[in-house]
């Protein structure tokens, strides 16, 4: 017997094609909601689109060929000055693979005095390649590592991220544990991020986190702090894959069906500003991928007098359904 919950959801999802999907701002209006900024506490820095992997779910089309779009020293200086001015609670460094930007250690050291928490998003294999150059600065500045680890299964991981990535990820997690990352009492936080390895929604966060702890410990003796579980955003390479495989319409339907008005209040775009490799500002990394500037205006980080004003509107598009699906995206 098919699952009734699925059936109810499918019935509720009236649009059959992506072109029939209600604009995100209309669904917000239908629920009497507005997506506006609150106090901005996180600065997300995208160091560039260069990456050693070409993941099939990447919303930025990052890869080894993206050698031009990477933050230079001048932009880095402007970003650090902005962080000094605003004193964000968290600085979240992402890419591409930020490890491939030679300025990463400099950025961490220069920005550390102005924020209590630095996070580095890593695909693990890039960190493995640059471990000798980076580990001392990461541990000395207590940088939180947020590592991609999509699945406990080799085939699923390699299908999403490339051949051999699962084994490299396990090796790097082992090396991080040996340095104290993810171990009780070390003060070195290691979090994992899991994305579905296809055109389906992610599992229940609490249940999958429990399972990851259990299996990683049991099979490889690995420990970590938290697991975050996110749906894939239909942009970039993932959107292309969805279209090529005939999954696009059905995937968008799933996202629309899973729209949760209660998730809007906690969306990350409300409390973060995302700065691109070239210094321009966006409401989030997904809007960066689409070229949708923060508040609809092209502003460079050096023009900013302070954090974005609370109450200012956030630019939305179809991909926003991803973050508003289920329990939301943080």
């Amino acid at each position: 017997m098919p699952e009734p919950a699925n059936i109810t959801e499918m019935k509720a999802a009236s649009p059959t094609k992506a072109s029939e999907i209600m604009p995100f701002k209309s669904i917000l209006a239908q629920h009497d909601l507005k997506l506006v900024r609150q106090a901005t506490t996180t600065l997300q820095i995208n160091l560039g689109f260069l990456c050693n992997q070409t993941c099939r779910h990447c919303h930025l089309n990052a890869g080894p060929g993206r050698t031009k779009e990477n933050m230079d020293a001048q932009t880095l200086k402007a970003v650090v000055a902005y962080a000094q001015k605003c004193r964000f609670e968290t600085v979240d460094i992402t890419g591409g693979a930020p490890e491939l930007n030679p300025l990463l250690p400099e950025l961490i050291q220069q920005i550390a005095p102005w924020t209590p928490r630095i996070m580095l998003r890593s695909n693990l294999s890039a960190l493995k390649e640059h471990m000798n150059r980076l580990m001392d600065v990461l541990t000395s500045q207590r940088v939180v590592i947020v590592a991609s680890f999509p699945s406990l299964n080799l085939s699923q991981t390699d299908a999403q991220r490339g051949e051999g990535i699962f084994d490299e990820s396990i090796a790097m997690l082992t090396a991080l544990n040996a340095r104290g990352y993810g171990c009780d009492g070390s003060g070195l936080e290691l979090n994992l991020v899991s994305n579905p390895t296809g055109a389906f929604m992610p599992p229940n966060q609490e249940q999958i986190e429990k399972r990851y702890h259990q299996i990683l410990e049991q099979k490889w003796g690995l420990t970590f702090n938290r697991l975050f579980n996110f749906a894939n955003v239909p942009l970039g390479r993932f959107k292309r894959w969805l279209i090529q495989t005939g999954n696009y319409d059905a995937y968008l339907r799933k996202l629309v069906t899973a729209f949760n008005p209660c998730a809007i209040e906690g969306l990350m775009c409300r409390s973060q500003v995302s700065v691109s490799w070239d210094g321009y500002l966006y409401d989030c990394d997904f809007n960066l991928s689409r070229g949708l500037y923060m508040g609809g205006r092209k502003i460079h980080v050096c023009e900013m007098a302070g954090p974005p004003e609370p109450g200012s509107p956030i630019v939305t598009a179809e991909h926003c359904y991803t973050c508003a699906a289920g329990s939301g995206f943080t």
Partner: protein
Amino acid sequence: METYYKPEDLPKFEEIGKEAPELARKFFEYYNAVFAEGELSEREKALIALAVAHTVQCPYCIDAYTQACLEKGSNLAEMTEAVHVVTAIRGGASLVHGVQMRNIADKLSM
């Protein structure tokens, strides 16, 4: 090509409640309770459902529970093993009846 099984029929399942709403309500309430997290996880229950779906050979159920298994965090290797479990039981159920065949043959034979 015309077929009895059409994917677009799956969302019509709810319509089964039109002629007997109270029975449908009770059934779906029970169904949802069965699949909620309990002593078994939702993931484990979805794997059982996938295996049973293959036994009853219901295309709707195979479609629904393949998706459910993936969304609950199972992988293709686990799902394939689940299908082998029901295959073993199905095959074993035939084979074990060979004992009955042997008993009858023994009784009739010199």
